[in-house]
């Protein structure tokens, strides 16, 4: 079955509708419906990813649009995981909202998704490296949302939940960074060369480790979580707009 980018809107719409149903059900306390809706939404988007992968003949992980696709999927997965594990009623609304924003961006700004994959990206590290990163971004995105929510709704103590998400997110972020280092050694001969993307990843990692060492306490905790997430955005796509990244070895994802 050939599934091109022109069919993304249908799969995305199904995922958004099912995830929104799940979010509403979770607010109403219907756990079964919420779980079923959330899982169905994930399946709808995952089906597109799999079929699109088969159609392209390469993993859809190269362009910014393709990483946004994975980010939306991982956000839905992170939201469902958090809801299943800790039962926060509002998390599905947040994860659905954020995932929808990225899906809508991909519908509004369709990009060229050609079948070429440059030789440097033809590696067994490619899929685990990017997929693990996207999942960590999703968990850390949820942690940031919770930290901001906690700022305004002080009656809920969310520090434990934020800390759990941070541990999961930082664990995946670390694995993403290290698989990248092993891959870089195989492809370019250096584990770490302080390429702008690597430098921003190190900065974000340092700030996330700082957040973990603050252990959910202190007035600086939320500020550090938010600063770390902003630094992570620089690492993900912000770096592409910096003059320092003109000669970056990571510029293939600008397309």
């Amino acid at each position, binding site marked *: 079955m050939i599934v091109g980018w022109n069919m993304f809107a249908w799969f995305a719409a199904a995922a958004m509708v099912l995830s929104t149903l799940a979010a509403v059900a979770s607010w109403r306390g219907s756990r079964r419906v919420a779980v079923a809706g959330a899982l169905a939404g994930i399946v709808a988007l995952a089906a597109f990813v799999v079929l699109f992968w088969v159609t392209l003949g390469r993993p859809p992980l190269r362009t910014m649009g393709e990483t946004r696709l994975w980010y939306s999927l991982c956000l839905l997965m992170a939201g469902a995981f958090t809801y299943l594990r800790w039962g926060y009623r509002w998390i599905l609304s947040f994860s659905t909202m954020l995932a929808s924003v990225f899906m809508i961006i991909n519908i509004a700004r369709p990009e060229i998704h050609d079948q070429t994959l440059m030789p440097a990206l033809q590696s067994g590290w490619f899929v685990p490296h990017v997929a693990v990163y996207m999942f960590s971004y999703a968990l850390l995105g949820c942690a940031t949302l919770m930290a901001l929510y906690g700022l305004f709704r002080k009656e809920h103590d969310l520090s434990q939940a934020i800390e759990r998400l941070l541990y999961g997110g930082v664990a995946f972020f670390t694995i993403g960074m290290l698989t990248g280092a092993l891959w870089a050694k195989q492809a370019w*001969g250096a584990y770490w060369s302080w390429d702008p993307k690597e430098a921003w990843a190190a*900065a974000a990692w340092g700030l996330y480790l700082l957040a973990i060492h603050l252990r959910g306490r202190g007035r600086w905790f939320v500020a550090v979580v938010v600063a770390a997430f902003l630094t992570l955005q620089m690492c993900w796509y912000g770096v592409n707009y910096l003059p320092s990244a003109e000669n970056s070895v990571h510029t293939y994802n600008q397309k």
Partner: protein
Amino acid sequence: MSNVVHKKAAREVLVMGALMGIAVAIELMFGSFPLAIVRFPLNVILMALWLVLLVELYRRRERSRVAQALLSQRATVASLVLMAAVGIALGLQREPATTAWPTVVAVLFVLSHLTLVTLRGWRDGRGIRWRFVVNHAGLWLALVAGFWGAPDRVQTRAMVAREVPTREAYDMSGRTTMLDCELQLIDFKIDYYSEGAPSMFEAEVAVDGEPITLRVNHPYHRTWSQTLYLVSYDTQSSDAVRYCVVEVVREPWRWLTVAGIVMLIAGAVLMFAAGPRKEAQQ
């Protein structure tokens, strides 16, 4: 009590500021850290002295103010802020100043703090805290290999042609150097996508007469510390490719880096599986 803590913190910030100020002054007066001078065995001697000093500091932690300051939570915060600051500073530069004195001082401070807290974690009275040790010792190994091993890392590139074998290569500053083996191009294959972009290229190269195959992501490990990579090729020629560019990297500390990375991955898995420590949640 809180006044004492504030005074201590203010003093430590002052000391850190002074250290970084000195580093900036040295950078401005004498230029970047002379990496080439501290090659083996000097780097190993300096590292051994640094480790002896830190172990001695750790032994005197009850009496030494420096040891207490380096082992404090504030030092952890300072280390991680420095790590982030170094990342941001290097991320904004076109040519990252990895050997600038402020970068070297910052990394040495982070490593010193990490050494002491890893020792404390290892010798903790409650027994070995595996996750703590695996994560901290893993990061320590990777950073030690990257920092103290950097002067021994040699990266050169050779233009390898079909006609005659070559030993001549260039380092990253453009200086000519001689390789310890002869390289000659035997054959070069390129496949293209229908759009015209190359989908695969591979070189058959003779290393001291022995044929090997090089491809992107498929390097050739010649010795335990030396690896050959295919980085580029003659894109101008319309017929057969006349030459390719082979990168020869000698990195004797690489296995320490690998050990550190493996430990950090194991630590990350443990982090995800176990989550935050119970006392931290209470």
